[in-house]
């Protein structure tokens, strides 16, 4: 308890006034010569004790009135232990939920607007000399994430904060807040305010473990901050969300049909019999479809499209706008190429027709060129003999085929390994020339490329007896997308390499022989893929090249291997965005990146290994990013995917909120006004003058009642 006008406390001595008056009055009495003494004597004889008690009570009430009045004027304040803080400066960190769901609000005002005001109110309440930082929980507020004593500037940043980000990441934001408190904040009074819509998908109890580490880190600080949770309520709304757009492949050739799938979901409300979905390619609406949506159920909408132009394209699936616009469209970036360069390294070059190790493969990959047709092949093959293979041959290729290669120079193997790790595709088809020991020592142990060890040749290439076919079933895999059921029934392999697949890579077995032996095994190495076959791609060990399925099998296999887009163009928020530019792009040149909100950044071309790259890390905002490389090259599009969970606007239930409050040891404060009041009470204590005044009034009334009861009305 303290007093704002302690000097007036002396007025409590006024309690003595009624007592003094009482004593004085007793001394300065008047005299009445009285007739009816018998009544006074009667009363005093029978009621002296009661009258005395009542007199003392009245005197006590009268003495209390001036004392309480003086107390009220001294402005008493209930402070408790918090009295120590007074107006000491505070280190405050505000976590502002600027996720997409904050776009929805109540009464024409978005939750984000309410959150901004709440955060500003918090800043307004900080005492002079305080420092504050504001952390965007979904997207950064760069100008406010550094602690600053310029609270007006921080306030302005908060008021200018825009939405359009993805999902809030409480755990990461809390970790950042903890780091700020640990390293950058100085005051002993510490405050962490979380302003959020308490969306269930963000704060769900299932993700408590993620947050627990951050809470522990905050609690472990020498002066743990007080945690205040300010929920921003939003009216429940019906929300149609378009989920992630999935493409049949991230890279396709010009004219190749691309299959596009998007999941649409209805959150809340009632069933919607016809919801329109639109397909937009590079911003141009091309097709639409109608789906029926049931609340909570997902519905897949499918489109297909073939591009007639190479380059970086954006495919969007959209629906009509509703309360939450952020999830009314989803996009994917796709690369369309007009050629897929493939380098074949032949272990057995032979100028005679169809005698070369790669002859059948070349035909299968470039059927039009071989047939002198007018259409252009997507895949462009170039073949080098193994003896002349060198790193430079890998530079422009998207896929490499080692066709019955005995061994390669070390430099070439190293280049090959790097090529694969950076997203290249490698197909290994060992034949009779392949040396299991070199494959094991170099390709497997040294380069880490081999999906399985070669464990010896089974069968004899020149003996038809004992030939085996393929198991008639194979997994659904993009590499095998060209095979129809029964397409390989006629294949007979007279010999094959037994592939010793480590158990942990058993999932990579794509094709087996009918005797159960694996024949095609895939392994991911870095960003790239390696496929090892159990035999060569010519007709030396079997009749596979003569089968109709050979061409689609090889085409799909090579496109699968060669269509790894690395660095990826469809990424998650926060993931680093990078693009490989033409190798002749000068280092230090600037590329221009346009962000989804329309802002523009300049990126410097840097050298990474033998490539020229641009990179960008601030990818918290979902949407389409367009990069214009220097030198007039075609623009490149990235899509940062919107987190689908953000579409579910369900807030935490009351019990879950209670659990969250317990988890954070937080105080929940519903409004800026309440925060203001509580903070003032904490700092300045609870002013008791109002209660004291009521007390004075109460005593006056009591005095009147007692007085009336004892003295009655005087005519």
């Amino acid at each position, binding site marked *: 308890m303290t007093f704002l006008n302690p000097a007036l406390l002396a007025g409590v001595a006024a309690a003595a006034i009624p007592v003094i008056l009482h004593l004085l009055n007793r001394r300065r*009495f*008047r005299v009445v010569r009285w*007739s009816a003494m018998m*009544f006074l004597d009667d009363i005093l004889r029978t*009621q002296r004790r009661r009258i005395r008690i009542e007199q003392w009570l009245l005197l006590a009430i009268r003495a209390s009135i001036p004392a309480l009045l003086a107390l009220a004027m001294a402005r008493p304040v209930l402070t408790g232990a918090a009295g120590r803080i007074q107006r000491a400066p505070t280190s405050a960190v505000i976590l502002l939920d600027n996720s997409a769901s904050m776009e929805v609000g109540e009464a024409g005002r978005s939750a984000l607007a309410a959150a901004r005001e709440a955060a500003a109110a918090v800043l307004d309440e900080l005492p002079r000399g305080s420092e504050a930082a504001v952390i965007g929980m979904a997207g950064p507020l760069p100008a406010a994430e550094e602690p600053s004593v310029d609270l007006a500037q921080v306030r302005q940043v908060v008021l200018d904060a825009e939405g359009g980000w993805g999902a809030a990441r409480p755990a990461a934001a809390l970790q950042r807040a903890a780091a700020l408190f640990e390293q950058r904040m100085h005051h002993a009074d510490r405050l962490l305010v979380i302003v959020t819509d308490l969306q269930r998908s963000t704060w769900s109890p299932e993700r408590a473990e993620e947050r627990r580490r951050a809470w522990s880190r905050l609690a472990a600080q020498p002066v743990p901050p007080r945690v205040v949770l300010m929920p921003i309520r939003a009216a429940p709304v019906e929300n149609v969300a378009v989920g992630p757009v999935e493409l049949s492949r991230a890279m396709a050739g010009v004219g190749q049909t691309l299959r596009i799938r998007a999941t649409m979901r209805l959150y809340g409300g009632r069933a919607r019999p016809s919801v329109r979905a639109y397909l937009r390619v590079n911003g141009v609406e091309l097709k639409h479809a109608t789906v029926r949506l049931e609340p909570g159920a997902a519905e897949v909408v499918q489109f297909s499209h073939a591009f007639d132009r190479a380059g970086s394209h954006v495919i969007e699936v959209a629906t009509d706008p509703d309360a939450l616009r952020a999830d009314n469209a989803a996009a994917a970036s796709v690369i369309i190429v007009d050629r897929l360069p493939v380098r074949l390294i032949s272990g057995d070059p032979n100028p005679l027709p169809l005698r070369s190790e790669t002859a059948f493969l070349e035909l299968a990959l470039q059927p039009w060129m071989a047939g002198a047709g007018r259409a252009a092949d997507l895949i462009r093959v170039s073949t080098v003999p193994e003896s002349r293979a060198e790193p430079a041959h890998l530079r422009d290729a998207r896929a490499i085929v080692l066709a019955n290669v005995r061994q390669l120079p070390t430099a070439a193997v190293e280049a090959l390994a790097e090529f694969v790790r950076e997203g290249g595709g490698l197909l290994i088809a060992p034949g009779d020339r392949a040396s299991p020991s070199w494959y094991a020592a170099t390709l497997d142990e040294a380069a880490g490329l081999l999906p399985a060890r070669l464990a010896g040749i089974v069968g004899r290439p020149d003996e038809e007896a004992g030939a085996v076919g393929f198991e008639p079933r194979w997994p659904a895999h993009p590499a095998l997308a060209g095979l129809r059921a029964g397409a390989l029934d006629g294949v007979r392999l007279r010999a094959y390499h037994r592939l010793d697949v480590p158990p942990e890579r058993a999932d990579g077995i794509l094709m087996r022989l009918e005797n159960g032996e694996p024949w095609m095994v895939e392994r991911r190495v870095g960003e790239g893929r390696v496929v090892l076959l159990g035999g060569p791609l010519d007709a030396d060990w079997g009749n596979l090249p003569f089968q109709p399925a050979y061409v689609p099998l090889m085409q799909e296999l090579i496109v699968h291997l060669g269509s790894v887009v690395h660095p990826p163009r469809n990424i998650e928020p926060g993931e680093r965005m990078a693009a490989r530019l033409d190798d002749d792009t000068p280092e230090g040149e600037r590329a221009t990146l346009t962000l989804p909100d329309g802002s523009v950044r300049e990126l410097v071309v840097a050298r990474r290994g033998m490539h020229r790259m641009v990179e960008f890390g601030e990818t918290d905002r979902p949407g389409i990013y367009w990069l214009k490389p220097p030198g007039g090259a075609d623009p490149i599009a990235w899509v940062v995917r919107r987190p689908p969970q953000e579409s579910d606007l369900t807030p935490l239930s009351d019990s879950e909120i209670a659990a969250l409050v317990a988890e954070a040891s937080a105080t929940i404060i519903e409004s800026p006004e309440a925060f203001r009041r509580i903070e003032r009470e904490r700092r300045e204590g609870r002013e008791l003058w109002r209660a004291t005044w009521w007390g004075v009034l109460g005593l006056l009334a009591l005095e009147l009642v007692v007085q009336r009861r004892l003295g009655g009305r*005087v005519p």
Partner: protein
Amino acid sequence: MAERLPLLAPEDLRRLASLQVLARSVVEGFCSGLHRSPHKGFSVEFREHRAYVPGDEIRRLDWKLYARRDRFYVREFEEETNVRATLLLDASGSMAYGEPSKLDYAARLAAGLAWLLLQQSDAVGLLVFDTAPRRYIPPRARPGHLRVLTDALERTRAGGETDLGRVLHDTAARVHRRGLLIVLSDCLGPLPELLAALAHLRFVHHDVSVIQVLHPDELEFPFRGWTRFESLERAGHDRLLDPAALREAYRRRVAEFQRDLRRGCHRHRVDWALMTTDRPWSDSLSRFLAARRRRA
């Protein structure tokens, strides 16, 4: 004590004259209408001689006396009297309270009543008392008796303690002839004794009326601030107190007392009337007479 005004001022007499008609009917009603009269008959007896004045009836001349004195004298007789009334005036110390004092007020009432009764040829006596009878004037109906009575009333001063009960018992013994007894007192004394004395008076067939004269302060107790109440009757008897603290209790006590007095009087068929000194005494008297008439 303030200089007392003449008891019957000319204006009082004017008002009393108007009451006379009322009083006459009351007195008549109460002596001959109901069998409540203390007298069964009347007599005509000589009272005095007075000098003849022109206009006197010739037949009233006392010729024998003319013969002896050679002057005309008219014979006056004791007129017809059917009521012997005695006014009992409390002159104890407590009656000194107020301005005018209760004693003044009661004395005026007594004078007024005496005038009315004498106007009707009733005999009126006076007993002034405090602890004991202080002065007694037996009832007479002579016209000059009023003067005797008013002189006695004017000379009366308050003092001493009250013992109303004892005085009334004494009166029962002293006034043998049944008659009308009008007690003028504040009645501030032990109630059981007072009621017992009233019962005694009724037992000997007196017609008793009690006119209680109180000052409004004695009913309301309106004092403020610490006050020492000193007894008007007993020296050295005082109480220092805050009147506000026991005002309500006082009022309750007084109300109880008045209620008991009223009921007691009613029980013994004694007329009782409360008169407060803040009202003109003639008004109070007329109300008293009117009430008596109604009861009669």
